[in-house]
């Protein structure tokens, strides 16, 4: 009841014309940022941060929260329409979303993504209000060994994500891990696989890899094909999700919401991991896993809900402890410090109007985004009517600008083109690009968590089975690996007995 009162006060802060304007500006800017390849929410907030100087911290934070949520919606648009993930957490959406677009169902994909995002975004704000304090205690009990187990579980599910040959998926995963080892080794301070490029000291930015492999790689491949073939234009049928789409999607949306929130709360995990754990979960739960990667609407509904839900989750450690749970909230924290506001454990008591104003504005922002995104679907799908000969160069231009804007780095642009060619070749040899991108994301996290754990335990492996959460997660990881094997053995035995 008290929370409700507080929330009412929050709404009274959030619905002032100024704050509504900042919320609207934030959600619009966020949608554009999310849609631009390369620039994700964290880079977007950095770039727009100077605009908020001179504004009071509450309005600035409302705008930043709007950008954060908006980027999660916006990332979907380009993933579905042109196979370019607008930001990292919509990589999974390209797998089935783009396939749906090719089948003329772009509208359904965008519709279910917007509605799933709205439900997930709203539920996660409710959860943020109700369980923030107890949940953050659980999140803190996650130390390096627990993260290692979680990330390892993530890595084991990668091979299943791609569909097709598991061998190829593993091959690509290892290639991604190799790429991810480049950069300064945090534990010794030595550069590793940087080939004397200072730009590589921070490692390869996975956004560059994602935009190269998916976006431009796909453009090159399509360009080659369309030169030979006649012009293909997709017909756009049923713009809205059908009753059947709903039936298939409501469970993935529900599961995605909870996966996203929980992963979002964990400091250091975030929307990307949430979205692909959700995808892996849906594929495991599905009675027809073979549909995934060929335009299954569940493959869009789950991850899109999860990445939006993670925004509410990531706000939990920020608002309750003053500790950022993701790259984006880390920048928000820095920004708040610039405004002279220092989030910490007392923020709820000391600045209730700030906290509840921001929470209330997240509700409003989600409604704005739903209206905006649903309303714009007929407009967005028109992009597909642009002839390929115009659209393809545009994709290259936007990808280049987006990647450059992240760190103002021409080196990244060069790297983008290298990965574009890699992406083109992989497409030609039918190697799945998703495992590469995800292992570039997960690789450094797994390595860091493993080495932190072993430093903590002074080299002893006991640390991985003496901590209950770690043990549980590791057992789940093994189950994921062993499950297909068990199925295979059973099948063999059955055919064996049938044969004799």
């Amino acid at each position, binding site marked *: 009841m008290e929370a409700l009162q507080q929330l009412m006060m929050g709404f009274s802060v959030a619905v002032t014309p100024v704050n509504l304007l900042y919320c609207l500006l934030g959600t619009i800017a966020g949608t554009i940022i999310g849609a631009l390849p390369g620039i994700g929410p964290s880079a977007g907030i950095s770039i727009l941060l100077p605009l908020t100087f001179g504004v009071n911290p509450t309005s600035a934070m409302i705008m930043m929260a709007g950008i954060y949520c908006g980027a999660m919606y916006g990332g979907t648009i380009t993933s579905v329409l042109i196979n370019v993930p607008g930001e990292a957490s919509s990589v999974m959406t390209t797998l089935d979303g783009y396939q749906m677009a090719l089948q003329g169902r772009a509208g359904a994909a965008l519709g279910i993504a917007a509605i799933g995002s709205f439900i997930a975004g709203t539920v996660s704000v409710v959860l943020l209000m109700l369980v923030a304090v107890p949940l953050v205690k659980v999140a803190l009990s996650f130390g390096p060994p627990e993260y290692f187990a979680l990330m390892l579980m993530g890595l084991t599910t990668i091979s299943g994500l791609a569909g097709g040959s598991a061998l190829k998926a593993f091959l690509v995963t290892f290639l991604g891990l190799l790429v991810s080892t480049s950069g300064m080794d945090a534990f010794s301070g*030595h550069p590793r696989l940087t080939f004397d490029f200072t730009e590589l000291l921070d490692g390869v930015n996975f956004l560059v890899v994602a935009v190269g492999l998916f976006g431009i790689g796909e453009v090159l491949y399509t360009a080659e094909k369309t030169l030979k073939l006649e012009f293909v234009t997709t017909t756009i049928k049923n713009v809205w999700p059908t009753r059947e789409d709903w039936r298939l999607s409501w469970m993935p949306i529900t599961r995605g919401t909870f996966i996203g929130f929980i992963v979002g709360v964990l400091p250091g995990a975030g929307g990307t991991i949430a979205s692909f754990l959700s995808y892996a979960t849906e594929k495991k739960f599905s009675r027809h896993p073979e549909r995934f990667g060929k335009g299954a609407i569940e493959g869009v509904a789950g991850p899109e809900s999860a990445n939006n839900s993670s925004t509410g989750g990531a706000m939990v450690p920020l608002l309750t402890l003053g500790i950022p749970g993701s790259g984006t909230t880390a920048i928000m924290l820095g920004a708040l410090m610039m405004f002279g506001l220092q989030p910490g454990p007392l923020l709820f008591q000391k600045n209730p109007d700030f906290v509840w104003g921001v929470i209330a504005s997240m509700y409003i922002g989600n409604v704005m985004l739903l209206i905006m995104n649903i309303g714009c679907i007929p407009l967005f799908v028109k992009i597909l009517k642009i002839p390929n000969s115009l659209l393809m160069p545009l994709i290259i231009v936007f990808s280049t600008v987006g990647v450059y804007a992240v760190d103002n780095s021409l080196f990244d642009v060069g790297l983008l083109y290298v990965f574009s060619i890699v992406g083109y070749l992989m497409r030609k040899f039918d190697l799945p690009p998703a495992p590469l991108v995800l292992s570039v994301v997960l690789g450094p996290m797994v390595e860091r968590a493993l080495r932190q754990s072993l430093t903590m335990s002074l080299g002893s492996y006991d640390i991985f089975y003496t901590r209950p959460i770690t043990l549980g997660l590791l057992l789940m990881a093994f189950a994921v690996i062993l499950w297909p094997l068990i199925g295979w053995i059973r099948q063999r035995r059955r055919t064996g007995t049938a044969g004799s």
Partner: protein
Amino acid sequence: MKSSMRNIRIIVLALLAVSAVALAADPAGAASFTPNRPIEFVIFASPGGGSSIFAETVGGIMEKEKLVPVAVPRVYKPGGSQAVGMAYLHEKKGTPFYLGSTSNSYVLAGLTGASKTISHKDFTDIAILAFDEMVLIARQESPYKSFKDLIAAAKGKPKSIKWGGSNVGGSDSILAAMIGKATGVQFNYIAFQGGGEVNAALLGGHIDIASANPTEVMPQFEGKTMRALALAADERLSGLKDVPTLKELGINVTFSTFRGINAPPGISPEAVAYYQQVAKKVMETAAFKKYIADNFMTAKFMDGAQTRKFYDSFADRTGDILRELGVVKK
């Protein structure tokens, strides 16, 4: 009518010319340089950190208080432990319209091999404006109520105390090594990515001790989730009166993060003098004093020559530690 308009124009032009000459011939005779195009203030890090707060504050003051007649756009060039931004600024050789924001990593980059060819010696030093202190922290529930408890518990048990911080070769690891050397204790240093992760690990009880700039953890002290054990500063801080310095505890270690301004190599002495004057004026503003107070920092002006001397001795001091840590080859 027409001719009178022309006359007015001529008078205005003449007045402008005279005032331009007057401006150029500064009565003090010190600064004959005035920037006539925007000054790009380069930050060698991402937005949100200490360097960016410093540069946004200082650059903002220069603009708002009209200490310079042009705009001061802040440009972020993060990456490579500052090496990427340093390389960018170095390319602007001889152009007096660029400034950089320096901190410990700026000198460390030249030592650790992050920046292979460029070091702090390859730039023009403008000034150091302030020092950001470092405080040692433990979580509230920690059995170590004071720094003495911690050292007493750690003595004779090498690597029993887990110290979390940023990458090895960064400021946190250097402070840990200095204290370890001074007390004869061997800490088990664990590298994390950024202060947020370190603080989460500390609150979760996965590490025993960490170091931070006071401003980052002040709310944690107020919220009674963390406690301050000791300060690596010369003197106690007014905002943390109860926290002893390491020196008071008999450990002769001081370490802090400097906040300074540098410029590309080869700019004229007039430009250097001009920017030093601007830096001094920035420090006199109320906005700067508020920034120092809000962030529990120490304001201290060092001119170009003093700054270079400070950098050199900082490099000597930390170079030895880095060699011991194995980051720099002997």
